[in-house]
């Protein structure tokens, strides 16, 4: 029962994380230039983006912790996964991609978004640079989410199903 709950929380938090990642990339980033053009962007940057980022970054952390806990307790082993050993190789690739994505969230996206949104002080040049770094890190995560999801699904089936 413990493993079912942990796996459930891992997937639930993952849906929140990746769902918000796709919202940022497919909706907000596309709508923002239009909102700026008709002076309605302030509502997004002041009210929506900070709240979405709050759920986004903490869901990312919960997803990783629950995934790591599940790997260890289910018998796969965190070490086997990250060393891509035997049947743990597929889920291990997913785990590596998820870990890179978590790093991007907490080290690149969130600190730079704080400058963009005015949560920490920054001049215009610093804001422009921060916006570019945060954008590319977010797009990198969107790109990585495709193989990450593929290997999470493949990895969880790899113990019983053929890979080709």
């Amino acid at each position, binding site marked *: 029962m413990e493993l079912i709950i942990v796996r459930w929380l891992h997937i639930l938090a993952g849906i929140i994380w990746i769902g918000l990642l796709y919202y940022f990339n497919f909706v907000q980033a596309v709508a923002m230039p239009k909102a700026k053009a008709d002076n309605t962007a302030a509502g997004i940057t002041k009210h929506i983006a900070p709240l979405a980022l709050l759920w986004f970054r903490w869901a990312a952390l919960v997803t990783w912790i629950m995934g790591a806990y599940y790997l260890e307790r289910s018998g796969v082993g965190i070490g086997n996964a990250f060393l891509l050993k035997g049947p743990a190789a*597929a889920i291990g690739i997913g785990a590596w991609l998820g870990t890179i994505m978590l790093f991007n969230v907490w080290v690149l996206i969130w600190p730079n978004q704080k400058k963009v949104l005015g949560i920490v002080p920054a001049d215009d040049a610093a804001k422009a640079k921060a916006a570019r770094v945060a954008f590319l890190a977010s797009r990198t995560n969107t790109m990585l989410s*495709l193989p990450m999801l593929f290997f999470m699904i493949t990895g969880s089936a790899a113990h019983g199903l053929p890979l080709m």
Partner: protein
Amino acid sequence: MKTPLDSIAGTIITGLILTVILYFFLVNFLVKTAA
């Protein structure tokens, strides 16, 4: 400097290509090595 990640289409195509590359890495190197 523009990159493929500047567009949504470029992001998705890059992700699909990376998925294929990693899949063949898995089946040709990791799984065969383990077998």
